[in-house]
């Protein structure tokens, strides 16, 4: 009986939630990484401008 029950027991299909979870994790991480890179690039450009002005 237990053997038959284990045969009928199936793993629930929650793959779509897993995909959504990892999409959120990687999506936000990616946006944050890009934001740091862009902000740094802009800041360096601004710094160069101000350094030229001070000279």
């Amino acid at each position, binding site marked *: 009986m237990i053997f038959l029950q284990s045969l009928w027991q199936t793993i629930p299909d929650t793959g779509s939630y897993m995909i959504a979870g990892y999409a959120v994790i990687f999506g936000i991480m990616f946006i*944050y990484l890009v934001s740091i890179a862009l902000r740094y690039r802009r800041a*360096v450009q601004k710094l160069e401008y*101000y350094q030229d*002005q001070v000279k």
Partner: protein
Amino acid sequence: MNTDKPRLLTFLDVLSGMLLTSAVLMVFLYAPVERTMGAVQKVFYFHVSTAWVGMLGFLAAAVVGVLYLTTRKIKWDLAGYAAVEISLVFFLIAIISGSIWARPTWNTWWTWDPRLTTAAIVELIYAAYLLLRAGVDDPARRARFSAVYAVFGFFSVPLTFIAIRLLRTIHPVVMGGSNPGGEGSFSMVAPMKQTFFFSLFAFSVIFIDLFWHRIRLEKVTSKIEELRIQLMD
């Protein structure tokens, strides 16, 4: 001011990328699928790791807050701001990914459970830290207020950690104890444990890498501010 990227930081970038890739491969190819929850349980590895990064950053902000208050060196203030920003992002990821995991496990996206509630409070406390910084113009005053806030704000972080161990909650306690009332509990087999600890390690390295990048950005921004004031005078 030297804005060139240090070699060690480039190495850390590569290492972080490799560790993240390895962690992803372990999650999807090595760790087995949990029987009662199915594939969604795999969110657990990065859900906990992102929450870990969040807590690590809040701790770093409190430590550098104390360092600022004792030394009054502005570099500690910049580090504190960098740490809080990273942690806010990663803690938000943990909250959202947890909500997605909760939907098939608890049959709801959100419930006012002690763990979820305290996590939301922590996120709001540190979001207010950013508002506080934005509201104070004087750099020394801003640094002092931020340091005090970060030190006191950190008291909310251990509360989130122990909430599921002390209070009645449906949030599972997977490591360091058990929660009989927890829904979505599972016992970790060896490959799950290895994947979990590897993910924690990978995200710790990613935190250090991001922290360094973020501090560099703050240093440049601070220098711009200094030059701007110099030009205005």
